[in-house]
């Protein structure tokens, strides 16, 4: 089957301009704070962040444990590293909630859009039904005419 390559896929569209009204309102028209919130959550929730954090921890522990280095700033049991972890957690929690709140807002908006569209679709469906009923009515009249003609012909 030939695949239409000219039309942008949903994934490509995400990077440029959104088609869905909820995405338009939510992403294309996001405020500065909302954009930063999205960047923060996608930054913390990435493999890059996890990788860099792991390397950072490894270096910290190595520099503070090996005899070769003389200037140690946080020897065993790494109390300052503990503080660093806690600071990270203290920010991750609120950022997690921030991103959750964003998603909840989006969900709210999506449902409102669904309700509006469903209402329009239902109206359209009823209109289709009415139109078909009108068609049936007309067809019935054609049939009646033909029958009357047959009776008149006496066959």
């Amino acid at each position: 089957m030939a695949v239409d390559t000219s039309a942008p896929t949903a994934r490509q569209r995400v990077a440029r301009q959104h088609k869905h009204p909820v995405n338009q309102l939510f992403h294309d028209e996001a405020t500065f704070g909302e954009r930063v919130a999205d960047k923060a959550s996608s930054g913390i929730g990435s493999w890059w962040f996890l990788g860099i954090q792991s390397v950072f921890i490894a270096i910290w522990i190595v520099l503070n444990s090996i005899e070769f280095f003389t200037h140690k700033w946080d020897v065993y049991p790494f109390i300052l590293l503990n503080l660093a972890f806690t600071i990270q957690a203290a920010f991750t929690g609120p950022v997690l909630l921030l991103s959750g709140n964003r998603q909840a807002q989006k969900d709210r908006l999506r449902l409102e859009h669904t309700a509006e569209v469903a209402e329009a679709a239902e109206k359209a469906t009823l209109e289709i039904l009415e139109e078909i009923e009108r068609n049936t009515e007309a067809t019935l009249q054609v049939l009646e005419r033909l029958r009357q003609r047959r009776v008149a012909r006496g066959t």
Partner: protein
Amino acid sequence: MSQPVTHIPEALRDEVKALIHLRLRQAHRGPEEDHKHPANQAHYEEATRGERLADQLAAAMGSWPFIIAQSCLMIAWVYFNVWGIFIAHWDPYPFILLNLVLSFQATYAGPIVLLAGNRQSQKDRITLEHAADESDKGEEHIIKILTEIKKNTELTLQILSELEAEPA
């Protein structure tokens, strides 16, 4: 025979679409009330006191003012304990009490995140239940339309047999 005209159902015309977009825009920045979707109504307008409190808690903790205030507090804490003059250094380097305070915050943040998550999963459940209702209604409509078209086809076939019976 004349060209068939494309009829756009009234509910799908551009004016209606624009109106929907406008209402959506108002709902986006507006207060969390007067919802159209039953799941939103159940979630926001019919929330119990505990649920409202959970939402407010999540909204307060997951906000820029909270994050900025916390940062300022941390910086001030470290500043006063390292360089602060005219004030007792109540938690000198490596800031063990600050660690405790932040751990305390994290201890509450976890359950609050889960509280918010539970609220959302409850909403998801309501949404799906409503979607099932809607799908039933859609099915009903489709059956009605199909029945009507079949009736129409039946009549058209009868017309055909009437025409065939006519002398050429």
